[in-house]
């Protein structure tokens, strides 16, 4: 993927560049907001990693300009300004995701991957299927290998997020945000517990496990490789 990293802190920018390049992406870095805008307008870009506080032009303004120019490129904010108001502001302006510094690099990777493959338009999907697991979003039911599985509300929501991101790593933070709408760390094993309950229902009774844990990163639901 072609990734633009707009970050005025040289250390952070270099770290991201190195890490993402190692994963096979093509990374360009800029340290000024105006350069970021110019680059996006004239160069192909799959994803933009944007710092909010930059010299020249701040991240929010860059985003607004991009969006009003009709550019729909996915934008991931990476910033020290992490309170809810700033987050909401960034998302309302057209940002696609918001990551607060400091962050785990794996978190960044997971979100970048998720954003890049997100369909540009919101398709109305009624079914999600991975291997022999089927999730019916209309009737809120789950079936695996033909057998109906009884899921509680949160378990269903959790499974839905994992399946929508099938094949990609979903971090704990992403799950807390998307399943529980928690923008904070509850300091308890909410995610782990629910994953384990989910596993007990959809993995254990069957031969092939679908939910995998990646140490220090997160979870990934995928068919056997």
């Amino acid at each position, binding site marked *: 993927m072609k990734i633009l990293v707009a970050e005025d*802190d040289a*250390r*952070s920018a270099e*770290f991201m560049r*190195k890490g993402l390049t190692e994963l096979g992406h093509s990374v360009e870095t800029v340290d000024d907001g105006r350069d970021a805008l110019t680059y996006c307008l004239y160069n192909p870009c799959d994803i933009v990693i944007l710092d909010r*506080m930059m010299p020249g032009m701040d991240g929010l303004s860059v985003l607004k300009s991009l969006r009003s120019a009709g550019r729909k490129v996915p934008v991931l904010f990476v910033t*020290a*300004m*992490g*309170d*809810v*108001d700033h987050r909401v502001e960034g998302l309302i302006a057209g940002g696609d995701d918001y990551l*607060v*510094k*400091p*962050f*785990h*690099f794996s978190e960044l990777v997971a979100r970048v991957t998720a954003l890049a493959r997100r369909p540009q338009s919101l398709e109305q999907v009624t079914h999600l299927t991975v291997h022999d697991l089927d999730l019916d979003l209309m009737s809120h039911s789950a079936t695996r290998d033909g057998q109906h599985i009884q899921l*509680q*509300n*949160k378990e269903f929501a959790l499974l839905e997020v994992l399946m929508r991101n099938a094949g990609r790593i979903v971090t704990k933070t992403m799950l807390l945000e998307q399943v*529980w*709408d*928690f*923008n*904070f*760390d*509850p*300091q*308890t*094993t*909410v995610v782990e*517990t*629910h994953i*384990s*309950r989910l596993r007990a229902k959809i993995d254990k009774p069957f031969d092939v496990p679908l939910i995998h844990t990646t140490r220090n990163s997160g979870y990934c639901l995928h068919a056997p490789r």
Partner: protein
Amino acid sequence: MRLGDLTSASGFRYSLLVAPLFVLLLVGTAGYLDRVTQASMVEQLEIEIRIQLTSLRETFVRQGPEALRAAVQASALSTSPAVQRVGLFDAAGANLAGNVDVVPDIEGWDCFPLSAGNGLPDREFYGTVTAFGPTTLVMARTMSGVEAVHEELHWALMIAGAVIILTRLILEVAVSRHVGRKLRTLAKTLEAVSQGDTDRRVPVGKGNDQIDKISRLINVHLDRLSALMATTRNTIVSIAHDLRSPLNRASLSVQEAMTSEGIAPAPQASLEVAYDNLTQLSATFDTMLRISRIQASADHAGFEKLSLTELAADIAETFRPVAEDAGQSLTFVQDDDDSAVIMGDRRMLQQMLVNLVANASRYGPPGTTISIKAWTGPDDVVLEVADNGPGIPADQRQNVLNPFHRLKGGGHDEGAGLGLALVEAICTRHGASLTLSDNAPGLRVTICFHPATAGGA
């Protein structure tokens, strides 16, 4: 203006105390006026009598007792007996002339009753008994005029007194109401400010009375408060950036080192510890910033109508499995008819409730029961989280709300002791009261909100 407000107004109370004094003064003045008038009128009577006595004495001296007798008789006939009486008596007390029956038993000048004749009751007369040689002369004038004036003055003073007192009362009520209104406006403005409308200022009247002076002072302070809060908010943003950047760089460096090729287990382990600590530091810093931000702003901009029952049910559903895995039980009894609606910030309240439940779970041993309750009371809406774990000793209950305070024997080092500080900040922001009490055994946390229909936004 309710009677209670009226009577509690300090001005009114003061004047109620002073009123008896005032009435006393009024009565005293009236009494004095009465006395003076009476004395003056009586003096007038005396003068009139003396004039006639002088003339009679002259007659007696120049022309003898027979002339005196004739003069007395003439005087008695020439003046109405209702107005003046005169009588001459010999040494034995027999009547020689005039229209007085008997010598009154008085000394000097005095009042005495004389018959009005025709069976009418006696009337008061004022006069004197004088000796003219061997004879005795009695002359007196009626007190009826004086009495009449006394009556009228009496009534006039009473009415005047009543009017004065009434006028005073009315004026005082009016002033109290006016002052009361001003003070109420003051109170309302201050309350609005404390509820989050930090741009409100107290209206200052055109007159320069004491309340206006105080209002002006209050506005100055409110300006300072707004400026202070704005500065604090800006400082928080600056701190966020300035402190997060080095934190971020440290975190990245450690991550880089941890993932470098061929790293030996020992440095790897140390790096992991360093990394965990950096993450912990970041989380602590995050929470501190959150608390500061909540405290630096008082507005209810992000507030919406929400149901505590729904919120609690949601959190209960989320945490029940977590509690069960720890061998604990979590209950939430839902009353579908009572949605316990308040005005609040959903995210803040969510985090608050999560903190409380997580605390209960973390500090309680296996077997602990945790319960969440939400209900609408007569004048507030209550959220309660209770457990039967170790609880918090009474003397520590105030301290635990301080940032970074750790319970002795808390054991676990997740979190830096900011959880309850954040809970308190969120409660204050919502204008809700927070009470920690003994659940006998365990801890009961009770939070009382304003109902959605009153106050709030």
